[in-house]
């Protein structure tokens, strides 16, 4: 399109100044398929057990029954959105108790901090759902396609009926597991037997189908095809990890002091002047993250300890002591490398003590709160507009809304009394009352009732506070609310 002279002025367009243009491949890297080899040993066994327990809890918990009495769900763990209640065994939380939820999350976070500073990323390595389900999916993959070498051969082989059948079978089983995972999720939000049977007759709520569908897809993709990429690219935890772990934390560590210099070794060769690492690459082959633990601490490492099992097996074979890769601390490895005796591993350190103390404090507060939780709750909201009015006789009047919560399963009568400013008198809209003394307020079972209260006092009386006391005459439970009383001079 351009003129000839313009082209002549420029240099050869195929090689722009400054060398080769960046190639597409350089900008975007294709994922390298990882073929983790099956490891055998202590930690593999621990992971199988943890997998069985965590999956058992996840799939089984909604089916556990817990008798709470007539008219209340008997599911042990249930987030009942329809009636705005959360049940956890003996604990029953109302929306007003949301701070227990926050407290629970804070406790969980602190527990993660504590465990991480003691034992490194055991959460990532053993109990994270991403790890557990990926492990389960790899187990299925292995059942259909064989171990690492067989899987690599199969992927490189041309498509045959055999390959098709194996791949098809694997994905079908993956989808079934994914569906069970999504299906189990919705059981936590509805009565499990009802929603499970309603599911197949089309009687389950629409949200149940939606969430089951979404969870099915996420499980299938996260554990089936995305796997280690979730940990490396999507999960914030490996980043937070950097701030929580320290040189005192037990991490899966390659003991370079013992392993280096590494290299292949013939049987006839002596172990003198060389490290114990024979560069057999077993630790790399079993790694579900596809990394080399010998490169040191790295973000991708989920500390699943499978490389420990793999390495120990080899060490036994070549007649060297186990533990070339082991749970160890950075300072211990560094000390040995310098020829010093490593310091004793200290579980009690400033940060572990702080985490533990804070956890105990919050846990104690929550336990105390739950143990003394009342079945009545009164909240007084003062009118903001107008803050007060002057009555025709000169008295000052303030308006309040009393919100009464009855968490019991039968209707109750609460006794209200109001005290405070001099000459105080009060009335409740819609109730007969002489202005002083106790007034009976009915509240329905599981009810939240609002009462509008008008409190008046002498104009000149010193006044700052008005106290609303609500008492259950039968159980004696009492909730005292204080609110301010405003007048013109303030």
């Amino acid at each position, binding site marked *: 399109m351009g003129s000839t002279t313009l082209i002549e002025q420029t240099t050869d367009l195929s090689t722009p100044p400054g060398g080769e243009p960046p190639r597409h491949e350089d900008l975007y890297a294709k994922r390298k398929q990882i073929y983790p080899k099956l490891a055998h040993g202590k930690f593999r066994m621990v992971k199988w057990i943890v997998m069985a327990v965590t999956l058992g809890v996840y799939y089984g918990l909604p089916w556990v029954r817990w008798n709470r009495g007539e008219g209340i769900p008997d599911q042990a763990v249930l987030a009942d959105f329809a009636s705005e209640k959360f049940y956890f065994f003996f604990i029953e939380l109302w929306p007003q108790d949301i701070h227990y939820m926050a407290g629970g999350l804070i406790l969980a976070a602190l527990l993660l901090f504590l465990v991480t500073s003691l034992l490194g990323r055991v959460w990532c390595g053993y109990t994270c759902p991403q790890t557990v389900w990926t492990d389960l999916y790899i187990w299925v993959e292995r059942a259909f396609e064989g171990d690492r070498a067989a899987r690599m051969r199969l992927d490189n082989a041309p498509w045959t009926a055999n390959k098709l059948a194996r791949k098809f079978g694997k994905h079908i089983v993956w989808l079934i597991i994914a569906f069970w995972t999504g299906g189990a999720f919705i059981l936590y939000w509805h009565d499990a037997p009802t929603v499970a049977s309603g599911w197949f007759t089309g009687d389950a709520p629409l949200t149940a189908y939606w969430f089951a569908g979404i969870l099915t897809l996420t499980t299938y993709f996260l554990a089936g095809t995305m796997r280690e990429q979730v940990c490396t690219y999507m999960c914030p935890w490996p980043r937070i990890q950097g701030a929580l772990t320290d040189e005192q934390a037990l991490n899966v560590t390659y003991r370079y002091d013992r392993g280096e210099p590494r290299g292949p070794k013939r049987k006839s060769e002596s172990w003198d002047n060389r490290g114990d690492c024979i560069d057999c690459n077993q630790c790399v082959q079993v790694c579900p993250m596809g990394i080399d633990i010998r490169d040191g601490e790295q973000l991708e490492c989920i500390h699943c300890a499978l490389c420990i099992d793999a390495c120990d097996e080899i060490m036994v074979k070549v007649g060297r002591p186990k533990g070339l890769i082991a749970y160890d601390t950075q300072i211990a490895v560094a000390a040995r490398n310098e020829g010093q005796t490593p310091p004793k591993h200290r579980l009690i350190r400033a940060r572990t003590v702080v985490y533990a103390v804070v956890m105990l404090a919050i846990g104690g507060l929550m336990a105390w709160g739950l143990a003394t939780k009342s079945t009545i709750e009164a909240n007084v909201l003062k009118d903001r507009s107008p803050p007060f009015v002057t009555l025709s006789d000169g008295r000052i009047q303030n*308006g309040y809304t009393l919100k009464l919560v009855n968490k019991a399963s039968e209707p109750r009568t609460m006794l209200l009394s109001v005290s405070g400013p001099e000459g105080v008198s009060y009335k409740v809209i819609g109730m007969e009352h002489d202005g002083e003394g106790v007034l009976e307020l009915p509240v329905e079972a599981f009810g939240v009732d609002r009462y509008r209260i008008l409190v008046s006092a002498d104009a000149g009386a010193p006044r700052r506070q008005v106290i609303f006391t609500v008492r259950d005459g039968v159980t004696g439970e009492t909730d005292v609310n204080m609110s301010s009383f405003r007048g013109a001079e303030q």
Partner: protein
Amino acid sequence: MTDETKDIDQYSGVETTGHSWDGIKELNNPLPRWWLYVWYMSIAWAIVYMILMPAIPALPGLGTNTKGLRGHSDRAEVAKAVTELKTARDAQSVVLLDAGLETIETDRTLQQFALAMGESAFGDNCATCHGAGGRGAIGYPALADDVWLWDGSLDGIEYTIRHGIRHDTDDGTRFSAMPAFGRDGLLKRSEVDDLAQYVLSLSGRSEDSDAVARAAPIFQQQCSTCHGENGTGDRTQGAPNLTDAEWLYGGRVADIEATIYNARNSHMPAWDDRLDDATIKAIAVYVHSLGGGE
């Protein structure tokens, strides 16, 4: 992009982005390719979205924005939602139609429903003048106190809402007219000033006893017909009680003088044809609950 400008990290052998933060550099590792695919999918989705949904604003000559194949309109959605809400509310508020105002106020369920409905309707329709919570303003009566110009009972409040005050087109409207004593020449300026002192004296606030004495016969002659011999007002005519601490148009001498000179005859519209019966009843119960219901 020449080799000289490339900054290679010594440890990893990977090119860095060349940016340095406190000596820390970022490796320029390739992005995962599936990210690129997600980006492509987003572009594809954007195109689908633009076809399905209103997406392109009005271009010159086009007159309006593109409507999209789905014909979606937020405005229509809102109108539909409002209609649905009104239908749902009407179904609920029908319980208020059959019940008397007294019953509504004493029945716990009806009361809570009416108060919630009344608060919302009051906020939409009444709070503009009467203020949030009926706090009132100069010239707009406070509804939270126990001072009532016309009627503070449930039925009286409902009547006022329905027919308004001095609302020309409503035959049942509450009506009275205070003469503009000064402007219309009924009283001399000095007499108006004396009367203001007299009105103040009714609540014990005047310091000019001479003026009060001069104005006493004028008050009996001109004012007592409506405001009463003792100035305690007359609710049948909406004549305010002049002896209390409540001053709708201000309680300073100048305010009272202005009121006598020019008169005050403010208006409230009739809501009978603007709000449905259930809403009016709910507002009546709500206003009655604000603080001074009789």
